[in-house]
């Protein structure tokens, strides 16, 4: 019989680990400033930024490495959602593996 041992739950492998912060909504001053400040507070490194207008939406994405972050990802998410609320934007953070599995064969 296999036992349920909470300690057997495996941890992530070392190296970089990417997530993407997505910002959807209306372009305005301070978006990058506010988000990058929050990410810096959580010791998350921004590796790349891109933005464009798609189907009438302003879209900005940030590729971030959260491997060195000591924070709980939930706190980062809550912080981003707070900024989103203040600036009337939809902000999400999602792991790179999700996009790769959904869009690549």
């Amino acid at each position, binding site marked *: 019989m296999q036992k349920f041992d909470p300690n057997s739950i495996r941890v992530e492998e070392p190296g970089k680990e990417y997530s993407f912060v997505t910002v959807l909504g209306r372009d305005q001053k301070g978006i990058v400033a506010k988000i990058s400040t929050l990410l810096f507070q959580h010791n998350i490194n921004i590796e790349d930024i891109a933005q464009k207008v798609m189907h009438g939406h302003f879209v900005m*994405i940030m*590729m971030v490495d959260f491997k060195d972050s000591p924070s709980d990802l939930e706190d980062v998410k809550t912080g981003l959602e707070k900024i989103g609320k203040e600036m009337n934007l939809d902000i999400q953070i999602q792991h790179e593996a999700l996009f790769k599995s959904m869009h690549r064969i």
Partner: protein
Amino acid sequence: MTVSVNEVFETARMTLYQNFNIRTTTLGINLKDCIHSDFSRFLKQVYDRIKPAAESLVREAKKLEILYGVPIINKRVAVTPVSLIMETHAEPEKFLEMARTLDQAARDGGIDYLGGFGALVQKGATKSDAVLMESLPEVLSKTERVCGFLNLGSTVAGMNLDAVIALGQILKEVAEKSGNGIGCAKFVAFVNAPEDNPFMAGAFHGIGEPDFSINVGISGPGVVRDVVAANKTCDLTALSEVIKRTTFKITRAGELIGRELARRLAVPFGIVDISLASTTAAGDSVAAVLEAMGLERVGAHGSTMALALLMDAVKKGGAMASTNVGGLSGTFIPVSEDDRMTAAALEGALSLDKLEALTAVCSVGMDMFAVPGDTPPEKISAIIADELAIGVINNKTTAVRIIIIPGAKPGDLVDYGGLLGRVPVMAVNRFSSADFIRRGGRMPSSVTSMRN
């Protein structure tokens, strides 16, 4: 960038605006080795097996929701069919005690529903199966989170009509004992029941399964509806292609999250169930997909073909995306949990007869529909028998989750709230089939089962 802006945008838009989610992660748990001659020790072993496993499931699933930014709507547990583990304790009061233990373990483990309080009686019932069936009215009305099932037939065994007759009476008692019929919502009658179905109320951990397994249900119809609505005039071949592409993507997300969850829990990954399952959230409706295809209301002529096309495309996209497609992998069109189905039933667009017809193609059953409380038990059995015959003969799973509402008349709308939604009461055929149903016995297996 390792991923393009378009790819990120598409996925982010799905989660934000199209109800993209993982519908269910269900942990299957073997209870066979918990069996003990000392009944109180048996109960303790069952509780101790389920509660920590459920807690781990909920905790790790929540972490993955944050990591991937994709909601995991349901976290549930399915166990070995209870009649099987109770063979040496086949007494009604012990079944109730076992159900209470399962209920408590589910509650303490933080899960809303636990499946598996059922039996496989497709060819006949053991004493334990019979006592379990007798205990269903008490169990479904006195526990909160325990779900029951019976497998009443299969393509190779035929159908156990004696058990179907008994079930008509049992469901009437369930309805009466639980007041407004709500207990009926926690029970599913099957033929060809899959052993790895992650969806409640019919989930159980089959006897061919390992000690644990993680089974996943993919996102609901909201995402598919949006792509269908965005392609208003294309022909059916092109429509099938866009549905297929979308389903590929949502199934891949299900597979990714299921595998990661299984890895973290250190249990085997079972299957991805590619069923489309509606919720009461606006737009998250299979019927809305069919209506977006061009039907004024679901139930209109053309609905059966539209559903066949939809699910064929879903299966093709899903099969390409996952090596481990399993479970039901059809579609749910619950009358109450899908707001467009509810509307169609209330407006007279959808009858019980059409609901049954839809299950002949890709639907897995007549789900969450209500009938008046004064419907005779033989008629309940006949409704169930008709639906199950479709599954036996066509070598597919079919199921019935029928709500019998005491005091209700056709056209009434009963609000259960939350996950279960509003249930419109539908009219049943007024002519009797009681003499036919009372014949009992076993419908022989189908000639289509002779394949060796």
